[in-house]
């Protein structure tokens, strides 16, 4: 790709990859590029090589300024075609363009119609029609006051979005109506009585790094699990019910990602990737004693409460195990190549924790 993808999605029919990038564009790529596609693209490429000839000539241009412009044009044409390097040599179609950095893309089908939803750093959530009518913008879900980092469809079709705001937003997205704002920062502060790493301080802001719809078929509840960057817990929200309070589920490390595994008999277990390297609640401080497992498992019991579940721990022992590090790579002053260790530690921080960087700081308006 020409630009680094910031999020991808697959269309409902699994034939097309939607790729959103940092420059606000969404491209559609076939999952399997067919040989015909490549030929077609090669042809288009040859066409582009055609030489540019200005339609004006010295005979038709009279003013000095225009003559100069014409000279410039001819000079450019002599230099040959613009560098074709920027255009990838495979079938890809620009389908949506934002003016801000895209953070997430999702698609869904309602009845016979498909839709693509895109979220950006500038508080927007855009609802576009699905391919091939993605140039038609149905509307925007407006209400976020800070960046939007994640959007997610719940099981019942609600749109849930989160980002740099202290609330989780729930939308009736077909009519672009904000249904409710669920407090997200509040429950976390309440649970930790302040900042999870510096108890007592309250000047921290949440940055949503993940929203997952719980695919539990056995229960009626329309539930999502939410992760915030550098927070060693998930927050569970049951949508549409009377309770608007998120329930904090503490874990042994900052939550990085989550995936639902359907174990025998359709039971759902959430495998959560936890950061065993950094301190709980911190994206900077390295732990003295790293954790021993990179995964934790939760499953929902009969009354809908999440609890730790060790069923998968044995089979995934090798997958989740951490190798104890003899030489501590970061944080030890006697290390000879301290510089590289620090660089490594920083590279890891950047890889794991990038959502908070979306927040605009006062004075750095861009």
């Amino acid at each position, binding site marked *: 790709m020409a630009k680094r993808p910031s999020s991808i999605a697959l269309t409902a029919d699994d034939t097309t990859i939607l790729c959103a990038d940092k420059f606000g564009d969404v491209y559609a790529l076939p*999952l399997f590029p067919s040989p015909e596609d490549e030929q077609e693209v090669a042809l288009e490429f040859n066409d582009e090589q055609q030489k540019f000839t200005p339609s004006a000539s010295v005979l038709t241009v009279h003013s000095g300024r225009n003559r100069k412009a014409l000279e410039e044009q001819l000079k450019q044409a002599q230099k040959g075609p613009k560098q074709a390097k920027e255009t990838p040599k495979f079938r890809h179609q620009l389908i949506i363009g934002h003016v801000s950095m895209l953070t997430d893309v999702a698609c869904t089908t309602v009845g016979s119609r498909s839709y693509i939803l895109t979220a950006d750093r500038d508080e927007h959530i855009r609802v576009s029609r699905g391919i091939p009518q993605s140039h038609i913008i149905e509307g925007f879900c407006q209400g976020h006051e800070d960046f939007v980092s994640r959007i997610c469809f719940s099981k019942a079709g609600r749109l849930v979005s989160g980002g740099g705001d202290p609330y989780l937003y729930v939308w009736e997205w077909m009519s672009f109506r904000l249904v409710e704002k669920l407090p997200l920062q509040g429950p976390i502060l309440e649970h930790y009585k302040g900042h999870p790493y510096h108890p007592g301080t309250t000047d921290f802001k949440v940055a949503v790094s993940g929203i997952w719809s719980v695919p539990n078929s056995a229960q009626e509840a329309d539930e999502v699990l939410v992760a915030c960057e550098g927070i060693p817990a998930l927050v569970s929200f049951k949508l549409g019910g009377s309770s608007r309070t998120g329930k904090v589920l503490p874990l042994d490390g900052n939550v990085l990602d989550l995936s639902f595994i359907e174990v025998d008999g359709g039971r759902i277990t959430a495998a959560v990737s936890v950061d065993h390297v950094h301190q709980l609640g911190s994206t900077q401080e390295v732990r003295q004693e790293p954790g021993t497992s990179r995964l934790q498992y939760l499953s929902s019991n009969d009354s809908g409460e999440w609890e730790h579940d060790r069923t998968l721990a044995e089979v995934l022992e090798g997958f989740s195990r951490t190798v104890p590090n003899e030489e501590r790579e970061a944080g030890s002053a006697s290390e000879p190549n301290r510089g590289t260790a620090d660089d490594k530690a920083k590279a890891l921080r950047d890889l794991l924790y990038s959502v908070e960087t979306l927040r605009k700081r006062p004075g750095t308006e861009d």
Partner: protein
Amino acid sequence: MTLPYQCLTACTRPGADGHGWLLFGATGSELVVQSSTGATSNWSPEIPTSEVKVRYESPNKDPEPALEDEHEGPPGKRVKLTPVVEPKPNILHLKTTQDGQHLVVVTAEDKCIRVFQIDDQCRLKQLSQR
């Protein structure tokens, strides 16, 4: 040092005994796959040859501390050398198709989207790289 998984994804894949799943995890530039039957495999982006040479020319320098431990890892795991010059691109996103037959992997530094086919032994076959 083992790094945490920055991405996780799973899919359901009916196996020989009727029901099965696959779990994919990305740690740095390495992709680890495990199935419910315990089969594992891993993948990481290829290193251009020039960089591998550099690695061989200075064999005493920077031995991977994790190498020895890797040998005790799950069967089928293969240790690949880390380039000294250019670090491998980190994996940003993982996505499986609904039938669990294919996996889409996005890497950061080389800005690539790769599509893999997943076979019954949970081995990965790269179909395209864009």
